[in-house]
Each structure stands twice: as C-alpha cells, then as structure tokens.
C-alpha cells in the first residue's frame, strides 16, 4: 500500500505543489490540505496519515518572523496529533518555512535540553543559491544512504542558532545536515566533494557549526533550510549542462530523501 502523506499548506505556503509532486514521484499517496481544514477536524486530525510535510513559503506573510504564526498554530492546535504520528512510527518533514515553523512549535530539536531558533541571515538579506551538503544524521529514516548532496536554498531567516548555554554535543547529536564548501566551485555536479568550515556564501546564513538542518531525538522529524524538492529532476542542479554521458540523465539528488521516506513507511 502507498504511504499516505499530508502536505499541509497555510496562507502563504508556496512550495506545496512541488513538495507533493516529489512525494508522489517517490510512490506516496499525497493529500494537500489547508491548515484551516485540518483544524476543523474532530479528534486526531492526522489519524489517517503516515507522514506530515510542512512545505516552504512565507506563511501568513512571515511579517512577524519566519514561520512564527504557523508555528504558534502547530504548537497550540496540532502538537498532540503530530506527537501521536511520530509515536506510531510516522515521519515529519519541514522544509525552509516548514522547518522554521517546526522549530517555533518546539517540535525541533524536540528536546527541552536544547533551544534553537532560525534568525535572519548574517548577510542581512535574502539569499538564493545552490549549496553542497553533508549528512550528519545518517540513521534518520529520511537521510539513510545519502552522504553528500546539492540543494538550493532560498531564505532570509535561515541562521540556525542555539541558546548561549547550549551543549555543543547536544547540538551535534541532533545535527542533520551541514553545509560544505564545494571544492570544485561547482554545486550541481553529483558526487563531488567539499570541505569544512563552509564560510559564507557556502554557509549562506552564517548558521552555528555550518548546520543546515536538525532531526528530533527519534530521527523521524527532519527540518532543513535547503529544498530537496527542487532537486528531483535531471535538469534541476545547475551543473547538468556540464555533465556528459550516462550522468546526463540522472535524476536530482534530492529525490532520495522522498524515496527513503516512502520505503521506510512501507516497512
């Protein structure tokens, strides 16, 4: 049976269609719902779903901080349903604005021992470009079998920061992905390498420890600033015009993330 994935949109979500497409392409059955419809439901609002994806965008305009209001809605109205979903082995994904909302809702990092926030980029402006990433939570069901991958970022508030007294080991334990400095200067050519520290612009927002994403302690909730749904086709990563031979028609590296989820949920 196909795993059932809810792509939750709200006023201002804008990556919902391509996120739904990426899940469908990987073999999921996708339902797209506005948060107003989910809040109208009686009982466990997510009972029929195996996974929840909160896509990117500028929910409610992001005028009070990215993901602020959606995070508040998730925290006050849907947190028990999301926790129940995770408890029964379900998966949760927050991309970009969805990540910001999950952090605001306290679902990520998901432990009282660590307080995180996504602050405005150190560059002081919106940044959109491709980045090279290294997986640092290889046991998360979302990230299994992926070592490095190239994904684009597009955000103004992606600087992952932690409370001043945060324990560096606690941070590393929940680190999902980190930015690398591409050694060939060419994000988009699959299988190429990178180095640390990333620095700006390879670490586009100036995140602590070059972090691009977090998991919760179960690994089932993943939040990340880069957009895996924007690298699922052979023509997505900018290096594709420079590839030759068999590599030229390879699908985008982000697709693996969605395939991983579907395979995990199929059991």
């Amino acid at each position, binding site marked *: 049976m196909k795993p059932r994935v809810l792509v939750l949109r709200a006023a201002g*979500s*804008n990556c919902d269609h391509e996120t739904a497409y990426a899940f469908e392409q990987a073999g999921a059955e996708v339902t797209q719902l506005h948060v107003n419809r989910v809040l109208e439901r009686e009982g466990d609002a997510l009972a029929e779903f195996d996974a929840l994806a909160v896509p990117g965008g500028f929910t409610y305009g992001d005028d009070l901080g990215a993901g602020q209001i959606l995070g*508040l809605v998730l925290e006050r109205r849907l947190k028990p349903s999301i926790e129940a979903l995770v408890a029964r082995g379900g998966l949760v994904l927050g991309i970009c604005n969805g990540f910001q909302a999950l952090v605001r809702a306290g679902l990520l990092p998901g432990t009282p021992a660590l307080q995180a926030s996504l*602050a405005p980029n150190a560059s002081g402006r919106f940044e*959109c470009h491709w980045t090279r990433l290294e997986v640092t939570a290889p046991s998360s069901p979302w990230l299994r079998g992926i070592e490095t991958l190239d994904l684009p970022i*597009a955000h103004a508030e992606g600087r992952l920061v932690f409370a001043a007294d945060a324990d560096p080991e606690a941070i590393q334990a929940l680190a999902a992905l980190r930015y690398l400095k591409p050694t060939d200067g060419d994000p988009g050519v699959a299988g190429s390498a990178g180095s640390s520290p990333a620095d700006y612009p390879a670490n586009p927002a100036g995140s602590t420890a070059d972090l691009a994403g977090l998991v919760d302690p179960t690994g089932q909730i993943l939040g990340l600033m880069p957009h895996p749904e924007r690298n699922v*086709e052979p023509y997505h990563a900018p290096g594709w*015009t420079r590839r030759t031979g068999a590599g030229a028609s390879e699908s985008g590296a982000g697709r693996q993330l969605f395939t991983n989820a579907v395979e995990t949920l199929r059991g």
Partner: protein
Amino acid sequence: MTHSAYLVETVRRDPAHDPAGRALAGELRAAGIAVGAVRLAHVFEVGPTTAAAAEQLGRELFANPVLDRMTVSPASEPLRLAAGERAVTVLRREGVMDPVALSTLQAAEALGVHLERVRAGRRVYVEAEPEVARAACDWVVRWTSNPVVDRALGPEDPWPAAPRPAPALGQLARAVPLAGLDDAALTQLSREACLALDAVEMRAIQAHYAALGRAPTDVELETIAQTWSEHCKHKTLTGPITHEEFDADGAPTARRDYQNLLKQTVFAATQELDLPRCLSVFVDNAGVIRFDDDYGVAIKVETHNHPSAIEPYGGAGTGIGGVIRDILGTGLGARPVLNLDVFCVGDLDAAPESLPKGALHPRTVLRGVVAGVRDYGNRMGIPTACGALVSEPRYAGNPLVFAGTVGLIEHGLVAKQPRDGDWIVAVGGRTGRDGVHGATFSSDALHSASEVESGGAVQIGNPIEEKKLGDVLLEVRDRLSAVTDCGAGGFSSAVGEMAEGLGAEVDLSLAPLKYAGLQPWEVWISEAQERMVLAVGDAHVEAVCAAFAAEDVEAVRLGRFRASGRLVIRWGDETVADLDLDFLHEGLPKQARQARWRAPRAQPFAEPALTPGEALRAILATPTVGSKAPIVRQYDHEVQGSSAIKPFAGVGGGGPSDGVVLAPRLGSRRGIVLGLGLNPGLSDHDPYAMATWAVDEALRNVVAAGADLDSCAILDNFSWGDCRRPEQLGSLVRAAEACRDAALAYRVPFVSGKDSLNNEFELPDGTRAAIPGTLVITALGTIDDVLQAVSMDLKGPGHPLLLVGLSRDELGGGQLAALAGSAGGAVPRVDLERAPGVLRAVQAALATGAVLACHDLSEGGLAVAAAEMGFAGGCGLELDLSQAPREGELGVWGWLFGESPTRFLLEVDPARLDEVRAALASAPHAPVGTTVAEPRLRVRHGADGWLDEPLAELQQAWAGALRLAFPSAQG
C-alpha cells in the same frame, strides 16, 4: 484593570545577531559619520489592552526566544536613553499599508487578545557624541525612510496618538457644474481635481452633460477621467498622427498619416501574420500563445515608473503585484510561473548634488525597487529569474521599472464573458485611500514636488493577501463567467471594462473598507492593491464566496451586470452616478498629434584613450553589462521546481545566461524560454535601429538557449518622454514602425504590450529632462525538452569556436561609445532581410546536439561575449578574427566592441564540426579559434595581437559591478 496603548520593544542581546545594525554602522562610517555601536530595535504599539496582554504578545509574537531582549512600557512614557546614546524611530504614516500590523491583529486574535490598533516601527540606537549622533539619526531618516510613507520620531517626540475617528459622510456625491466654463476654466478644474484631461476632452464632457441637461457628479467625472487616461486608453498611440521625417540638413524625406499608430504597426503585424499559435492577443489582460496540447502560456509586462520614482519599494512591489494579478485575471485565471523585471536607473555613483532636485539617489532607487520585487515576488512563490538593468544619467529623475509575469492556462479557460445578471463580486484586500489618482498621475510628468503632492498615489503592497486570493481563485475559476484585476483606476476600470457592451449596477457602500470616511468617488477609483473583480452566475455565487471565506479572503457582492448599456453606481439608496457606457468608452475625442523626426548628423567615432584590455574591464564592470548576482540572488529563482537554464551558468554559476529555460508543468520536460532585448543608448542615433536591435536581441537570447523561433511571441513596452512634443512622438513612431517591420521579418507576432508616455522630469528652473526613448522587448518561446537547452559556458579545452553573423564597424550608441564619451560612430543596424535566416541557422545548429555552448553577441560586442563564455566555463579562448565574416572594414575597436546584431559565438564538439557547419551553411559564419586550458582571453587579427587578458581578472571586474550598490553585511 485599565486598557491603554503599550509599546513592546525587542532588541538583540548579542550584537553579532544584529546584522542590520552592523550594516547601518558600516554605512554611516562610510558616509563620514564616526558612530560607535548602532543597534536596530523593533517597536510595536498594541492597544487598547493590558500590560499583561502586551507582555504575552511580546513573548509569543514579537521577541525571538533565543536571541531577543524585550521591554514593555505604556506608550505615553517618554523614551529612556542611556548616556551617550540617541535614537530615531521610523513608523509608517497613518493609512499606509502595514503588513506587520495586519498580521499582528490577526495573530493576537488567535491568541485571544483583541486589539484595535497596532503600529510597527523600527528604532535605531546610535552611540556617539551628541552632534555626531544627531547627524547619524538624520542620515538614517534621509537614506532608509521615505517621507511619503514614513514618519520619523526623535527621542523627545511623544508617541503619536491615534487619529480621531472619521466624521460621518455628509453629502455623498457632489454635482460639478461645467456649464458656461471656458477652456481656461475647464483646464483649471481638471488640474485642481487631478483629472489629467485637456481642454478638448473637458469640452466633450461639458457638451455631453449639456445635452443631458444636468451637471456631472464627482463620481461620474472621476470615472470618465480614469477611463480616458493615457494609462488606460493609450490615446496617443491609438489616435491620429501626422508624422514627418527630415534628413540631417532639415530636408523632408518622408511623411505618413496614421489613424491609429498601434493598430497600423504592432497589431497590424500580428494580424498579417495570423499565426495559429496565438490564442488570445491584445484583448485580455495578457497575451496567450500555445504551450502544449493542454495549456496556453500567458504573458504580460507592465511599467510602474512614476510610483517607483517616488516610493521605489512600494512602487516596484505593487508593480510586480499588479502584473501578477494581470496573469491571474487572464482568461478565467492563469497560474503564474515566472516573473521578470527590468530597471533603468541613473548613474549609481552620481554625486548627490548633480541629481535633479527632489529625485532620490539612483542607488536608493535601485535598492528600493529590488527590495520591492524581492519581498513581493518571493512571497508569491513565483521565480523571478529573468531581468535586465540599465544605468544612464538621464534616468536619474525618472527611473523606469518594468515588471512581467508568465502564466499557464488551460485552453478551455482562455475565453471569458460576463453575462446579464451575473453578480459583481469584489475579492481580496480592503479599499482605502491608497493610490487615489494613480492612473491620472502616471499620465502626468514628475516634478520636484511630486513626492509631496502625490502621496496618495503611492501604494505599498501586502503580498500575503494576493497569495491567498490567487490560491482560491485558481480553485474556483471554472465556476466564473469572467475575472479581471483591479489595477489603475481600481473598481472604476475593472467594473467599467467588464461591463463594456453590457451594463452594471453597483452599490459601493457594500465594499469592505480599511477605515471609515471615504467618499464614494474615492472608493470607486482607489487603487488599493490585491483586489480583483469576478462575474459569477447565481448558481455558483454562494459556493464561490464560501471558498474564499474558507481561506480567510473577503468576497463581497457589490452588484450585478445588467444588459442596460448604463453604469449605475449607488451608495445605499442614493444614486451617485448614472453613466452612458457608450459615451464612457467611445466618447473620447480623437485628437490629431504631430510627430517629427530629424536624422542626427553623422559624426566619426571618437576612440577612447584606453587599451582594449582596459576598455574591456571597464565595460564588464558597468551595471548594464556586469553581474546582477547581488540582485538575482535576493530573488527566489528556484521556487516551483521548474528551473532548468538558470540566470547564471557555468562553474559556480559564474556567467550570465542568455535566456532562462524552465519546465513549468511538474512531470513534463516541455519548456518555456524567456529572453529580453533593450539598448536605449541607440535611441539617440535612430530609434528605428534601437527597436530592431531590441527585437533581435530578445530573439537571439531565446534562440541561443534552444527555443524554436516558430514558437515565439514578443511583447513591446515603450517608455518615452512627453509625446505631446512632436520630436518625442516622431521618435516613438519610428520605433513602432521598426516593431512592425521586425515582427513581419522574423514572423514572430506581438501578443501584448504597454506604453508609458510621459517620462519626463521637470527641473526647478522649469526646463524638462526626458529619458532616452526606451523600448523593452520580451521574447517568449518554447522548447520540446528542456534537456536539449544549451548554456553559454564553455565546456572544455580543445573545442573549435565559430562566429556566426556579419560584423560591421558599428560602435555608435554602444557600451564603448558610452565609455569613451563619444556621440559618433555608425549605429548598429539589423539587416531584416538576412537576420531571420541567421537565427534559423543557429537553431538548426543547436538541434544537431553538437553545439556545446552558445552565447549571443550583445552590449559590449565580441570581447564581452567571449570573456563571459570563458570565465563561466573556466577555460580560455584563442581567437583570430582575420577570417571572420564581415561587411566593410573594421578596426580593432569595431571588431572587439562593435555591437552589430544577429551574431553568436558557438563552441562545437570537434568530432561533429562538419555537421554543425552544414547546419549553418545558409548563414555567414567561420571558425575563429579554439578553447584552451589556460584561462586567458587572447584575440588577434592575423599577426596583430589585440587582447591578452587573464579571465580571473575579467571575471572579478564583471562580478563586482554592483558591489557598492549592494554592500553585504557579511563583507
């Protein structure tokens, strides 16, 4: 417990997390103001409420839990400052759209806190000696706020009190007597009421109402003024014109009479071509051409020049917001898939004292318009992936902002028609006084007091409102009879246009308002953003309105369309306007205009006192040619997961793409290719050459990326000086002629266009400065499979390079002429007989799959194109031009920097060179060298070495073109 207004202030605990404050400190020091620390705080006024509730809002909504320190105090308390510190607070003026305040009201309600009033502002704290701190605060106000929409509070100023509630409306509609007024009195009335109508037009209105035996109401007069405005009616381009041409000695060379210039040039070409790929042209908000078996592709490009001159951020934001609504309002609703923008601004390094009085600094303008497009386009989830920038001193007083959107629409949704009895449903944002007189304002010239006088014509957008509106519209569109957006003229234009050939009855008292106190005429013509008008039949109206309500969008029935031939506007029971639609749409008197063009005297090209290498670096570092990365990287150009050929190509995205290519249907590889063409520098020599060059450039760009020329369509956007002056109109006529000739030659139709014909700036001494005649051509094409697209970056060493197209000694009006300060030289001319064949030959060459890279030769000519291909691909070029195809004699400057059109540089798979050359057989072309591993650009002509430059240095020059205009806090 008493309720009153509280201020919640948040500030970062650690200055390392305040990049905006640090950036401001850097800018202040760069401006010579020796400040210490600068901190940015956010201030929110909430009320009436309790201290505890204000505290809760601060904690839950305003303060970042990890980073911020928060204080809550009664708004009546004076600001307390530390010793050695000064502060300035910047707030939106009353009545100006403030998305932060609207979001707060909604979010507070969700938290169970009811507020009536929210005001958000930013406060800058400066540590410095008192005099320095004062200067710093003044600088912050001068450079980071705009008095049209913002007010600044010093540390001693009390927090502004809430405005008094508006008085009840007295008289709803005022009769405006016209009987007996002479031309002077009519003109004065028009000017005082901001109607922008001339004496002839006012006399026609006078006569119409004399025949009716009554005076017009203010609502009627405003409706006529909006409908007849240059902005809505394009009366210059559609009216009769007598055009005369003269040679440089003043001897007449040609004379033509036009009844309707637009119909006889741009439209005529489209009609004559009569191509089946055109699904809807010049009748709707956008042109629509065929995309695939299921979808058409809609495209529209708009200008938003005057609002952007006065408030760049709001002007450009609402410019892009408006053109997105045009696409949403095309047919029964197209889904936006791509945005483009073109900015023409003054010299970015201009000394402030050299600027026209009242004009904002070009750098301020550019930063503002970029931020406006960024904040609107990004929030709409539409990739802004295509654009251009021109920097030229004559745009200082009157910058240009072009914004465009492309959308997809099912074939079956292209047609629309309101029916008798359909409901008129207003959806989206509320109506306020914003933008009152926008349409008539844009039809008047700017002057140094425009900033103050036309404040009402300025609008700030609220993109979240438009996003919500668009989401629902695309869900319900198959249940609508028609839809259009509220643009210039607001409800008056939207309802008036939809009612054409039918009739309508509207009750304006039902329109949701932002605040009370608006007169009926203000509601009717307000250009408040994010509103659209639907025509919905009885069977669907409940369900449609409920669908909007379900996603928190207001939808209100204002009235019905009626087959009455009249536009009847009521306010409750009182009729405030009753207009004959025939008069409204057909009553505008046609006024003959004179047009004159005199050819400039030919002058020799004055060579620059530079080496070719120095000239190349200088041209690469201009804003026009140089990298736009600091702009494009602020736009989300990857959203929707469709991007294939991106704005930047090559190693590390190190070079500029020609056209952008995207696959807009998820799961399909069929692509859209978009390219732009403009070169206003050529206008001074000959607007005909300028316009054909722009068409050629736009088509070169899409063909170079892999588009099929026979799939293409083009759009014309004219921004010109005051066309009531015969010289301006004459130059426009020549450009329009060129558009027709080019469209016919390439067999590519115009499908949409727009003109903005009063781009002049009045100087304090009364003289007027006009912009160079500026025509932006947008080309849209398709490609069967985006994986067949070709990028411009060189792919590796040892590959042959082919130069396609004839080179001539054409330096006039180009980048080298601007650098050398030369007004002379031959202007580049498109050979319309041969150019289409060259484009088709290049298309055939690309179709072989053996062309590894393709780049068109454009501003800055061969040297610029070769350098860009090299540094984008990380490999060098060795060129010998002695065998390259040419017409006439060329010297070193003409070869390297001449801007002859219809030329391409191709990198070819060496094993398949013959195949590519066979495909190019019908076009002039020749091998001109090879790619090499050593990253240098070397150009020689036989034994003469002309250029030998390291690519890294050329790339550095190119990449830094906008560094000063967009300093990064990151350094």
